[in-house]
């Protein structure tokens, strides 16, 4: 019986394992050093906030794995010997495989800041990070202030977490507006104000210079590069993005870039070794997507795809239209298609914002053809299926704006804004015309 070994029990690895099991009788082993069972990484924040306990973040009950004959192996893989088709664990143990899937995910970025390895400095990615945070910031007596470095999705989640326990937060964001590499100015500005409404000390255009230690090797303060200001704090959260977690592959002979290099079939340069999820890097980016996509659902889709290939139905990884979602404190965000933070030369954007400053919509379309290119929506839920269809049908923006109500996914009885949005759009069109 062919033995499929998967390193990493995150969404990518687990999806691959599940789909391989559905299609075949192969022996499957899922290796992880982080936890015994699969959990949803995106839900870690809710454990610290008290919305859930760790067991609630596990999508499958513990009997699931044995019932589906997916063997779980806890251990840290230190080396891969592809000539012998075996993994070597940290403790010296080894494991034979016939096919290997690398799905080791990411690790938080550290940019060589002085003091970045002090006690009380942490990312927010692994379960161990959460345990660390519980240790250094259990409450606002032990942690009088926390500083978060890096204004992305994990940064704002960490800010929300600490805020829920009444820990004062200083939030250092390199850009001059929150996440404006991705979000257009109107949206980014709204989120800036929302962060401040939550009494988070948002510092835009601020970089970390260094982290200062106390006598015991714990964080005492940080210094801001631009102003030289020293901010006393007990915890520093480093959330300046993530990169592939592939250090253990350096000597393996597997071709690496920033991540594990794969072709469209998710194959590495070594036969029988595949890489999926956050740690995989496409030789060439697919469409407007980045070569490395550290997104929940792309990990899942790569798992679905590689399972087909492994079970004999060789298949390219062909993601459909781009979409994503996030939540910024109380404001939900969804995106379908492409809306760029800095509009491309062919791109025209229409922006509508509600007067309560918690809802807005940005629609992107082609200047000449008026083809609908994408939408960002904040505080109004919209239907994935409808936008996916409209993007496939290459609808023009006027059609989309007139039919926006079909895409509404808010709960029943919620106030509708489609008319306001359409009116504002038509007004803008007449002005531009």
């Amino acid at each position, binding site marked *: 019986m062919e033995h499929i070994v998967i390193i990493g029990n995150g*969404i990518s690895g687990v999806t691959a394992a599940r*789909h391989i099991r*559905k299609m075949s009788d192969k022996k499957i082993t899922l290796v992880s050093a982080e936890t015994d069972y699969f959990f*949803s990484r*995106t*839900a870690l924040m*809710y*454990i610290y*906030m*008290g*919305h*859930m*306990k*760790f067991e*609630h*973040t596990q*999508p499958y*009950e513990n009997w699931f794995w044995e019932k589906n004959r997916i063997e779980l192996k806890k251990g840290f893989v230190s080396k891969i010997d592809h000539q012998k088709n075996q993994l070597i664990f940290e403790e010296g143990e080894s494991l034979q495989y016939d096919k290997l899937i690398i799905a080791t995910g990411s690790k938080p970025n550290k940019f060589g800041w002085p003091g970045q390895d002090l006690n009380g400095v942490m990312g927010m990615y692994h379960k161990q990070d*959460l345990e660390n945070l*519980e240790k250094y910031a*259990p*409450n*606002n007596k032990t942690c009088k202030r926390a500083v978060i470095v890096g204004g992305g999705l994990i940064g704002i989640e960490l800010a929300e977490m600490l805020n*829920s*326990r*009444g820990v004062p937060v200083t939030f250092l964001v390199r850009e001059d507006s929150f996440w404006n590499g991705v979000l257009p100015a109107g949206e980014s500005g709204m989120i800036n104000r929302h962060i401040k*409404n939550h009494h988070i000390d948002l510092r835009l255009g601020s970089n970390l210079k260094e982290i200062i230690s106390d006598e015991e090797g714990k964080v005492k303060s940080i210094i801001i590069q631009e102003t030289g200001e020293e901010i006393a704090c007990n915890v520093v959260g480093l959330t300046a993005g993530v990169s592939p977690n592939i250090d253990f592959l350096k000597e393996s002979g597997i071709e690496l870039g920033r991540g594990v290099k794969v072709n469209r079939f998710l194959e590495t340069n070594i036969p029988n070794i595949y890489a999926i999820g956050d740690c995989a890097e496409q030789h060439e980016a697919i469409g407007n997507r980045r070569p490395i996509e550290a997104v*929940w*659902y792309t990990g*899942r*889709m790569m798992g*679905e*795809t590689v399972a*087909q290939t492994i079970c004999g139905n060789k*298949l390219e*990884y*062909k*993601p*459909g*239209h781009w*979409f994503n*979602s996030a*939540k910024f*404190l*109380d404001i*939900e965000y*969804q995106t379908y298609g492409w809306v760029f933070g800095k509009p491309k030369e062919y791109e025209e954007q229409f922006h509508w914002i509600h007067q309560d400053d*918690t809802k807005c919509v940005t629609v992107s379309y082609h200047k000449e053809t008026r083809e609908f290119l994408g939408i960002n929506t904040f505080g109004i*839920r*919209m239907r*994935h*299926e409808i936008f*996916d269809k409209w993007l496939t049908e290459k609808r023009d923006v006027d059609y989309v704006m007139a039919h926006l109500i079909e895409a509404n*996914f*808010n*709960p*029943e*009885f*919620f*106030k509708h804004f489609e008319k306001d949005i359409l009116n504002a759009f038509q007004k803008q069109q007449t002005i531009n015309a």
Partner: protein
Amino acid sequence: MAVERNMALTGQPPKSLNTKQKIGVLIGMTGLLILLLATFNLNLPNKAIWLTLSLSAITAGIIIFSKGAYDKKLEGIKNDAVWFNSMSSRGVLAWIAGIALTGFYVILYFFADLLGLGQGADGTNTGLIALFDPLSYAFKNEQASQWFVYGTLYTIAIIGFGIKFIMKYKHNRYEQLRTVSVIFFQTAFAFVIPELMARLNSDTFSLPYNDLKNMWPLNYYAFEQWRVDQFINAQTIGLFFLILAVLMIFVISPWLTYKYGKRWYCSWVCGCGGLAETAGDSFRQLSDKSVKAWKLERWMIHTVLVFSVIMTVATISTFLGYDSTKYWFTKNAFLISVGVFLTLLFAGILYYKRNQLNKSAVAGASGFFIFTIAFLVLISFIDLSQIQIQAKYFSFGLNNKSYAADSALRAFYGFGIGSIFSGVIGTGFYPILGNRVWCRMGCPMAGILGIQQRLFSKFRITTNGGQCISCGNCSTYCEMGIDVRSYAQKGENIVRSSCVGCGICSAVCPRGVLKLENDNLEGRINSNEILLGNDVDLMDYVNNK
């Protein structure tokens, strides 16, 4: 991770109470203290004033507490510290509350004399129940019973905690409207209207206490002889209510369930549901989501349903039998119509819905069906009222009376299901088992509506393409113990008989994945292997295989 539980009312954020919340607790507790003092027969002169004071203090206390909790916060989900607070995470406070509530139910149902029922001179009340006399006189010119006390406190709880819930979900109109609705139905239909109607009763005219929305089989005594007789004797108006009760079961309720799902009843109208959604809201996360619990649920709720059906059939057929001259329906005509109705219903479902039923559902339903029909045949041959049953064998010697078999069946149902299951366990155990144990495991009404919802309804919870991140908020906060995430992460609509449509899964979802909808029957159940967003060819290939 060792997460510390803290019992103290003060403590670190987010568990700590602010000043306003502490004032709320103090005022509310003062209101409860007055009730407690009355229970211990402290002589309170001018009961009307003390009662007003007590009930106002309880309501005001809850409202002030909620204002403290939510007023200064921005609109959004307010689940911080749910699993840290002792009360909402089965800590010491939860156990204390659970034991207190359970004790209250046991006393209320079985030892009402301890509350002062009829303990004064000439059968007047003393203690807690006497405190409620002035209000009862104001309504219907009679002294209070333990049920009047219970009804009043029940209504106060739904109003007070309903207002709290509305403040908590200030950004969510579905939750707000739903809560206004349960407050209205409890206050008007279950409390004020029936109490006022009792005023109309005289020596020549009397109607039974009639909560219009409280349908059979939730109202398991709806068709007992004394009620049916009272309705018939009350002429036109009585007959109207009797016919309405039957129409509710066979026409109105199935139609509403077809259009909107069982939520029209369970989370918008029902009194049990009303309490669960308001006073019980803090405990929704405690429901058991395991597959094991679901298996138990299927057996339990349908067993109770069958029990309620045969109990009711036995009751009606018995009085139709020995009082055959009084009613235009005879015992055998009744039994045959029930048998024919159930057979047609069962055969129809098996035939028309065969694709939606899995093997275990068919096997279970067949078992229940055969058992019910066998029982019908049995009671067509025997007269249950002639068989005597010694209660001591079934009540650990607590009850030494002997009953006719039909009343024994009724008494056993009333005791086991009506009192112990729905009251003592269903509500008393809120802080330990969650707020919907009765609705999920025991309510025969929910059982019927559930079958209708699963097979004959436009209602479903739609999932939003590929947006689910499997975080688990939806499953955690589902009071019915549905593993919502297991559907959402597969992009599959949630079509479950137990879903009461409270809408909280949709509210707590951080990615906007879930939406309660009434839509076409076609494509309502859509199981997918691969979600929207992936390669179109792959989706087609796998999902159509």
